[in-house]
Each structure stands twice: as C-alpha cells, then as structure tokens.
C-alpha cells in the first residue's frame, strides 16, 4: 500500500498542477471575449466576474475541464448511439478501423519479420527500406492512399484500416526482427544439439523469445494505428469518426466539440495501450518472463 502511494502521489500532484494551470490559462485565453462583451454592454467586470465569465463561455478559446466533461457526458450518455452527434458512434467508427488495421498490420509485420530473419537476401534488400520508410512522413501519404483505394472501388472501413495498418506495421517489423534474433548463439547451438530442425527452432526457441520484444512494439503500434485512423478520417470525413468530428467542428469553430472529441480519442488511446500492457503482463507471467 505504501509503495503504491509512493508512486501514485507524485502523479496526482502533477495532474492537479496541470488542472490548475488549465483553469488559469482558460482565464487568460478567454478574457478578450469577456472584455469585448463588457465594453459593448457598457459595464465593468470585476475580477471574480471575469473569471466566472471565462469559465462558462459558449465558444471559449480554451474550455475548462468541467465544461468538457459535461459536453462529453451530453454527447455520449445522453445522446442515442445512432445519433450523428453521439461520440460513442464516432468513437466506434474510429475504433473499428483502428483494430482492423492493427490486426492486419501486426500479422503482416510478423510475417515480413520472419521473412527478413530467415532469408538473407530479403534482409539485405528490404530491411534498409523498412528503416528508411520510418524516417519519411508516412502520414502525408494518407490522402493519396485513400484516393487510390477509392478509385479502385474500395470504400468504407478498408481505406482507413489500411492507413492504420500501414502505421502499426513498422514498429512490429522492427521489434519482431530484433526479437526473433534475440536468442543467443549458445541457445541456438543447444537446440541444434537436440537435433531440432528449422521449424522446431522457430516454434520452440525464436518465437517464444521474441515475445518480450513484440509487446512493446504492439503498444507503439496500436497507438500509431489510432493516429492513422484519425488522420484517414480527415480525408474520408463523410463516413464519420473522431477525426471527421474534429474536422467538422474545426470548420464551424465549435471548440467544445473539438476538445470533447480529442479527449475521447485520448481516452481511447490510453485504454488500448493499457489493454496491451495488461496482455503483456499476463502473457509474460505465464511464459515465465515476469519481472
């Protein structure tokens, strides 16, 4: 108990500090509009009135956390899921594209990593491009890829999922290649003396020892595929989704909508990464890797 407190208390302090700063900033950023109203109305604002006004505006530059929570409550719990304004609906659209893309990206990444580890020609020719492609801004390709797939008659969830897959694929390849190569020469020799063939070496030695490398990549990958799905929705905004919601809100200057969609996206990301972390713990405990 004491140990948990030792770790949690500083985080609480930092989060509280962020909240205090947030409220302070929303006064600073929203005060111009408050002063505008008061000069037009011809009355003076005392400091407490100013603060009260900046924290309750309809279209603030920076909404306060409590305003955002109320807005999220209104657009998730109080709205029907089928409504176009329901963040649950948009969140689900984004989540389904993210998960589909993540599964595809991970499978493809693992297959490619196996190819790279077992085929030297592939290692020499493909691996440098995998690494180089991490240095180029892949997300810039998103509108193009969507356009290409649309022209090919592929619409709906697949274009979004392919961007998400594309983004989650690279961390998985890099992590898996490292992981599949992680058994030391001594271990490989050992299993060789047991006259294991290539398949057995793969299933009984290389694949199990890659697991501690796979999960950190999966954590990065699922966060990346969420970003990919959101950016893809900017181009495919007619289908809905959190990214589309942010873009539409941006056109009409509805800051509350942007913030609530953002916070939902952040919560989604945090949940997905936390689930991956949980899966990591369970699997590594059962496999005997646990710390």
């Amino acid at each position: 108990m004491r140990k948990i407190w030792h770790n949690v208390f500083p985080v609480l302090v930092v989060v509280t500090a962020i909240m205090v700063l947030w409220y302070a900033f929303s006064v600073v950023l929203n005060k111009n509009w408050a002063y505008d109203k008061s000069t037009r109305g011809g009355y003076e604002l005392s400091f407490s009135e100013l603060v009260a006004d900046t924290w309750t505006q309809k279209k603030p530059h920076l909404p306060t956390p409590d305003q955002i929570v109320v807005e999220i409550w209104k657009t998730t719990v109080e709205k029907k899921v089928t409504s176009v304004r329901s963040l649950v609906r948009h969140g689900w659209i984004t989540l389904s594209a993210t998960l589909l893309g993540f599964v595809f990206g991970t499978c493809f990444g693992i297959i490619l990593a196996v190819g790279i580890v077992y085929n030297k020609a592939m290692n020499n020719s493909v691996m440098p491009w995998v690494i180089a492609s991490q240095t180029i801004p892949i997300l810039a390709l998103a509108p193009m890829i969507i356009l290409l797939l649309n022209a090919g008659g592929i619409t709906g969830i697949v274009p979004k999922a392919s961007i998400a897959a594309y983004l989650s694929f690279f961390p998985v390849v890099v992590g898996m290649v490292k992981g599949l190569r992680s058994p030391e020469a001594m271990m490989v020799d050992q299993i060789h003396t047991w006259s294991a063939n290539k398949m057995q070496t793969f299933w009984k030695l290389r694949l199990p020892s890659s697991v501690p490398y796979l999960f950190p990549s999966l954590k990065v990958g699922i966060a990346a595929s969420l970003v990919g799905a959101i950016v893809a929705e900017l181009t495919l905004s007619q289908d809905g989704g959190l990214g589309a919601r942010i873009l539409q809100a941006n056109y009409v200057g509805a800051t509350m909508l942007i913030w609530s969609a953002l916070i939902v996206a952040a919560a989604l990301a945090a949940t997905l990464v936390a689930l991956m972390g949980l899966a990591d713990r369970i699997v590594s405990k059962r496999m005997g890797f646990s710390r």
Partner: protein
Amino acid sequence: MTYVFMAILVWGVGWGINIAISRRKSSRWASPISAVIFGITFIAMWELIGTGLEVSPIILPLPSAIGPTFVNSLPIMWADFVQTFVKSALSGFAMGCGGAFLVSLAIDRSDFLQRGLLPVGNFVAALPIIGMAPIMVMWFGFDWQSKAAVVVIMVFFPMLVNTVKGLQASEVMQRDLMRTYAAGYWKTLFYLRLPAAAPFIFNGLKICTTLALIGAIVAEFFGSPTVGMGFRISTGAGRFELDLVWAEIVVAAIAGSAFYGLVVLIERAATFWHPSIRK
C-alpha cells in the same frame, strides 16, 4: 501484357542478383547494393505494370510522369519546403527539443517530480496529439506559428522521457567516483552524466525528426496559407493533380531522410566512444 511479363522478368532478375549477392562472402557493400537494387526493381515494376495494365494517370501516375513534374515545379516545391520544413518543422523541433531538454535537467534534480512527470509524459506520448492541430490553428493563426506549436507539443514528451532516462544512465559507482574527485553538481553533469546520456538524447532526437515533419504536414490539413507541403498534398489530392502530390511526397521523403541522416551524423561525431558506433 508484354509489359507485365517484363515487370515479372525484372523482378526475377533483381531478386536473383540479390540472392547471388547474399550468398557471396559478405562484404561491406552487400547490404547497400541490394537495397539499391530492390529500390530500382520496385520503381521499374511500378513503371512497367502501370504501362502494361494501362492504369489511369489520375489514379497512379508513373515514375516517368512524376520526374518531369518534379523538375518543372521546383519553385513551388522550394516555397513549400521553406514554409513547412524550415519555418514550421525546424523551429518547432528546436523549441520542443530544447525546452524538453531544459525541463528534464530541472526535473532530474527532484525524484518527486520524476515519479510524477514520467508516467504523465509516457501517457501523453501515446496520445493522438495531432488532433490538437485545429486548436493550435485557432490560437496561433493560419501561418507557420500554429504548425510550429503542434510540432512543439508532439516532440516535447518523447524527448523529455528519453533525456530523463539518459540522465539516469550513469552508474552509482561512476557518480561516487566523481564525488571522490570533489566534482560538484555541474561538473558531474558536464563530465559524466551528459556524455552518458548522449545515446538516449540522440535516440529521442531521432524519433523527433520524424514526428516534427509529420506534425508540420498534417497540421496543414487543418488550414494553412496557400503554400506548404501539407496544403499541396491535400488540395492536390482533391484536384487529382496526383503527379504533383507524388513529387511533393518525394520532397517530404528526401527532407525527412536527410534530417534524420543529419542527426545520425551528429550522433556519430558526438558519441564516437559508444560501443554501437565504435568498430
């Protein structure tokens, strides 16, 4: 169909050469050469299959169409490059990484702040921060300042987490040794802890180069002046000027790789003593 067969032939030849190279005794150049052959094979197949199946240039322009567009629209490309890369990405990168570095020096002195800020930093680093772009556009206007702000937020936390990790990299024994030399905080920092942290700091910088360019480009999808790489890509894709868009992507790829390469070069010069670089 002949073109498609030629493409398959090209693929076979390229693959054959690569296998032959990999079977030979490994030399220093084996890997770069096969990477180049793979790249050339890929572009040749793109060209041949595109011609063979008569893919409409509206859908997928051929490399032979992208090349001339690239050369012809160099002035536009240059203006976009300056707007997006130099003004937005570089300034945001410098501010974000510099700020994160200073903050991590500050929180390094307090164990409490470390335990508080690191989980928050790790959390924020996983968030889809790119969604902050419309808000930054609202606060800082359409020009490069808002894009730089997005870049600052994107690079800040990865850099912070890496630098803090790096500052913890020196061992207790080494720090004790510095203490027996009567070195104070600053001397220990400059002669022991910063050099020990350098590999981690450079790792953070390398991650941030990619993030900076992505942030600057995607932020332009949310509103920008009529110049910039992200602007050109989103409007070009809307107007089906795909050869221009592909040329812009080539610029982005070159700029991104060059930026990354530059950081790697600096890293090699600065951490020449590290086992991963020392040969």
